[in-house]
């Protein structure tokens, strides 16, 4: 069934760690489930990318992998600003928080945020990526009106 999953157009990686970004990019590239990968090294850069898309009327990235601890704007601060963008709920964006944090408080805070789809450990595994892309495509199919 995995082979039948259509790739998403764009995945945004938000992480300040260069090695993590390279590893995640490699996992996504090898999975063939994304046509394009964008990288932001903090929350501000990620916000700038999304704002630019909104301004240009371009499609938003379908999947965002968001780190918690980053210099400058961290993951949770990004989520606060993201919520203020008032993006149409139909945009079907999936935000996944990626962290090695063992803190219960971080997990609880992420799960309490309506814009966060889930919380998973770094580094990203290909199985998790396939699962998320599949879920995204199923959502898209359900959204499409019957022919």
């Amino acid at each position: 069934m995995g082979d039948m999953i259509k790739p998403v157009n764009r995945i945004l990686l938000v992480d300040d760690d260069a090695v993590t970004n390279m590893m995640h990019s490699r996992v996504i590239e090898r999975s063939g489930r994304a046509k394009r990968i964008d990288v932001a090294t903090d929350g501000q850069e990620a916000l700038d990318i999304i704002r630019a898309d909104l301004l240009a009327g371009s499609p938003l990235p379908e999947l965002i992998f968001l780190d918690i601890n980053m210099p400058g704007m961290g993951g949770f601060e990004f989520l606060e600003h993201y919520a203020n963008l008032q993006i149409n709920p139909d945009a079907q964006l999936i935000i996944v928080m990626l962290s090695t944090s063992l803190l219960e408080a971080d997990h609880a805070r992420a799960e309490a945020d309506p814009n966060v789809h889930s919380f998973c450990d770094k580094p990203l595994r290909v199985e998790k990526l396939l699962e998320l892309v599949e879920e995204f495509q199923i959502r898209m199919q359900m959204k499409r009106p019957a022919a």
Partner: protein
Amino acid sequence: MTHPVPTPDTTMPEGISAGPSGSGDAGDVLRTPTVDRVVSLMPGFVYVFNHTTYSNDYTNRSVGEQLGYSSEEIRDFGAQMMMHIVHPDDHPKMSEHLARIAQLDGDDSISFEYRVFRKDGRQRWLRSVDAVFDRAPDGSVLRHIGCASDVTIEKEAELRLEQMNAELEAKVSERTRDLAKLNGELESRIAERTYELQDAVDELEQLTYIATHDLKVPVNNLCRLGLMLGDNAHLLAPDQAEQVGWINDCATQLSAKIQGLVLVAQIRLSSVLPSELLNLRGAVMDAVGRFEATMGQGARPVTIKVADDIFVDFARFELDSILSAIMDNAIKYADPSRALEVTFRADLLEGKVTLLVEDNGTGLDGERDRDKVFGLFQRAHKEPAGSGISLYCARRMLLRRGGDISVEGHRGKHAVFNLQFPKRGETSGDG
């Protein structure tokens, strides 16, 4: 009396004239119309008691009648009336009182309080004030004169007060016992918690030791192996060579984090360093001197507005580390578009020294960046790379000795670090 009169051998009153009649000399003296009028208007009982006959020579009104007894009953009581109406517990005290009157000098008087029973059984309190009326040629007391009044209300109030006081004292004693018990439990709990905390500290120190020493060997080996692999990268496939590079990057990061933990552990150890009075201007100038070479050609000279007579009570190693961290931060986050300006300004207010350090670098937002500026392994800026350790350590060192550090400013414009040193003599030895 109404005085009860003890019989010579003892204890019991006798021969009291209970009627409003007087007899003998005293009766005659007091029975002049004016005196009679006066004593009849007086509340209470006026009497003259004869120490020879142990009876009253005069009373202004009948005690028995006042207490509700009938004439027949009074007659039946006879000379033993007081024995019937005085509270049995007060009989001995009354005998003692009469004996004291017999010992009175000159115009001295003494008073006495005792209980009597009304016919209806209710108890009343009487207070007598007695003085010698006349004496025999040898000076012994022949008769005494006295006045007894009903002080039941006063006595009952007094007794209630005594009872309330006693109850209060009992409650206070009880509360004191409870408090002593609670104190005991609290002390025991504190001792228990202290033991637990000490245990936790010991464990933490052990973990820190492991992190800072035991982990270093494998991490250093990992770094070395990575470099060895890198040296042979030309023998590897491109992907593998790239991954070796990543491994080396990770090993370097790991080594830096462990080095950071070592520094944090050293702060813990430095907290036992003794504090001393240090000249702040001298310490600032030393710190600036240490960074002159790295400030760059374009930087303006550092402005130091610190008076010569300002001293701080601090450990020298820690003060130098803090000032170095601040200078290093100012230089690291200098804005390349303008010449770096750093100003040190100290104030002494009510014995507390405050040092403001302002720079015109890339700036910080006090509200937004505070946690990251002083958090361990946290950074407020993406560039340039930093360890996120030095300002954390600076804050820990200040807090541990009773001081503090905060930051204000504006992103893109400036940052102001506010260092508050503990008052002289109030430096905490350890945190």
